[in-house]
């Protein structure tokens, strides 16, 4: 399952259920449609409700990373459970995308003015 929301240049994706080869295809289609329509500067993928992930999840993140790079944006991998972190670290995803356990401040509030908020919260790239 994929829930998407784009506010103020940030697309927040909430994934839920198992992330395997079977479900990755549908998730990819949903996310890419949103990205190509809305051109966000930041893509936050929330893994807190993902119950299982294999290397298909790595493919999903890498693919979105490439897409966001082409658009000059960034990808943030948010709130991955321990068993997912293990796969992420093995694949070296932490060297490409920012991993965070705390999403506060990353996704602008819907009620706040767009564009202003995002500048303040843009993380420093290292």
């Amino acid at each position, binding site marked *: 399952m994929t829930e998407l929301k784009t506010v103020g240049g940030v697309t927040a994706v909430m994934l839920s259920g198992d992330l395997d*080869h*079977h479900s990755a295809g549908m998730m990819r289609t949903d996310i890419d449609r949103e990205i190509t329509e809305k051109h966000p500067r930041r893509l936050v993928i929330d893994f807190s409700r993902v119950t299982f992930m294999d*290397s298909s999840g790595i493919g999903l993140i890498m693919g979105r990373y490439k897409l966001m790079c082409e658009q000059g944006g960034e990808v943030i991998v948010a709130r991955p459970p321990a068993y997912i972190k293990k*796969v992420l670290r093995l694949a070296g995803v932490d060297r490409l995308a920012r991993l965070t356990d705390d999403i506060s401040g990353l996704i602008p509030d819907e009620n706040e003015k767009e564009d202003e908020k995002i500048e303040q919260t843009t993380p420093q790239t290292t």
Partner: protein
Amino acid sequence: MSRRPLRPLNEMTLTFPALSENERFARLAVSGFLSQLDPNISELSDIKTAVSEAVTNAIVHGYRERSGEVMMQVRIFEDSRICIKIQDKGCGMADVEQAMTPLYTSSPEEERAGLGFTIMETFMEKVRVKSKPDKGTTVILERTVQGKRRL
């Protein structure tokens, strides 16, 4: 291969069509069968991930998403040693070593990360691969289950 022929204490065999819907079923079947060993959460998720990679390989690469059957056998030996065999009768591989190289993938357009065997080798103690072009591929995954009690 092994010096003394070991009889499994328990075993199960499943065959299912090479449909991506069955990737999840294969994981659940393995974790259901292994529940008798009372595995801890971490080792169960390791085993499920390794099985998922092997079954996905059979479906995506073995049969190239065409129809076929995947066979999965899980055996439990003494001292909570488990052996999981995943077999397809698909296209097979000429170069197993290349396929097992981290980040190598024969289908980058599918967004396969090329990490399937790396994950299997990291999450299981032993991985054996037998493959023959046009005959199919057999992957054997082995490890010991520590369980909750011994932690």
